[in-house]
């Protein structure tokens, strides 16, 4: 069930720049990502071993344990969190980790829900920027200018 309301829907507002890491399957941060490097450790996830740190993480929605919020907050503190998380559905466990990091450390990791088409259009490895209003800009392929 994708987001029915207006998109982009900003769950946690902020700006970010980075390369897209597109996940084929939803990921549970708890038990799925370690925070020293930001590496995916869920052995059943198709992208196990990938580093999420600094990437624009694109995934349909989160999955699994409610401890995921803590892992996200810890990763933001440690500097190993994604630069932003873009989803096709709301996910309050992910949003909450980012809200907590903002409250205690003043560090912002934007979390945005995109329309399904916009979500699907983000290709792995593409360099993108996230605006404060949740807009995603893909730089021109030839010039690199947004």
């Amino acid at each position: 069930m994708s987001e029915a309301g207006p998109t982009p829907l900003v769950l946690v507002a902020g700006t970010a720049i980075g390369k897209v890491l597109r996940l084929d399957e939803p990921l549970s941060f708890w038990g799925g990502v370690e925070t020293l490097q930001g590496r995916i450790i869920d052995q059943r996830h198709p992208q196990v071993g990938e580093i999420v740190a600094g990437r624009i993480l694109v995934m349909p929605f989160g999955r699994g344990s409610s401890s995921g919020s803590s892992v996200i907050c810890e990763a933001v503190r440690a500097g190993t969190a994604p630069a932003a998380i873009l989803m096709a559905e709301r996910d309050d466990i992910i949003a909450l980790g980012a809200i907590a990091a903002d409250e205690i450390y003043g560090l912002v990791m934007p979390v945005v829900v995109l329309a399904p088409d916009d979500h699907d259009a983000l290709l792995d490895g593409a360099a993108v920027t996230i605006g404060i209003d949740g807009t995603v800009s893909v730089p021109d392929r030839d010039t690199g200018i947004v």
Partner: protein
Amino acid sequence: MAPRLEARDEARLAGAEGPAQQMATRVVTRLAAAMGAEELIDITGAHIDSCLYHGQAVLDFADRLADDGARVVVPTTLNVSSLDLLHPEHARGDPGEARASRRLMERFEEMGCRPTWTCAPYQLEVRPQFGEQIAWAESNAIVFANSVLGARTNRYGDFADICCAVTGRAPAAGLHLDEHRRATVVIRLDGVSAGLMERDVFYPVLGGLLGGLVGKAVPVISGLAPGVSEDRLKALGAASASTGSVGMFHMVGSTPEAPTLEAALAGHRPVEEVTVTAADLRGARDRLSTTTSDDLRTVSLGTPHYSVSEIGRLVELLGGRRVGDGVAFFVSTGRDVLHEVELRGWAGRLADAGVTMVTDTCTYFTPIIQDRTGTSMTDSAKWAYYAPGNLGLEVVFGSTEDCVESAILGRVVRDEGIWADV
């Protein structure tokens, strides 16, 4: 879209009740906005998962609240932590991290939470009533509260749990509301033998399959004999909340909001109907194992924490026999359940059988297991799902009977016959 707030929420946001209420109300309000809630509701209880140490961030958050004088305003229980306070000799972890874990636990006790240290608060003497609005964290507890107790909680995460407990407020969204509790997916069983459905092991496997099938939708399972036990519903829910994000399921004739299939669907047509076969279940069972090696070193039961009846069943299965010399056998449970087990005279029998009881924490994330070579065995789909990633070991999932017989023999054996087609 910001939620509509009451005057008391606005006053707290302005700092009228001090900095702790201010921050907690701000977190609940921001969460409500992220969830699309139109307002906040009052809650009557909370279960906190933030007491499990995941690094500096959770401690910093608890320190901020506790230093500012936060107190919970509703009865609040605490989830497992990283330490077994009753059996400190089990600790194998880093001493610095153990100190931080202990500190974190103390901060939540200071805020007025009950030191229950269990992931199965629904096994405590007092538990939420049907229809009660609560804020629970811990995925298995959430799915149990909604599905089996008929209490109402969203899938709360760390930070939100304690902020709801401190404010007594929660976003009016998701599973707190009638319209999100009705089933949208119907699960039917086809060609699954009655014999398999009568076995405990069927339920975690069905749950594991369910999580992958429905994601975070609310399913209704049809076709099982009514009156499925709480232990089985617990195992099913915990599995579905591990392999998927299930926050609530219905089972016709067994869960309180599903006396009939029609009741669970609340008069709506299902969005999807899925038929589960014996082959699907075998596939789901196989996905819960990471190895075929029969070199058994460890058995871990009790994820979620074993109930009194599950421990009674284990005592019966052991039948006075002792586990093999090369096998470490752990059972995780709550301290309240352990107390009852001691009163019943089972603790000595378990110790004599070579069983180590673990309380306050769980073997699937705490460094209690020493030997991580060879094969670990479990009857828990949740343990099987998470332990390989958390602990770096190989797992074989089996029934409780399989686990006990394997432990006694010292190598993995499983009863394959029950999984055959009808």
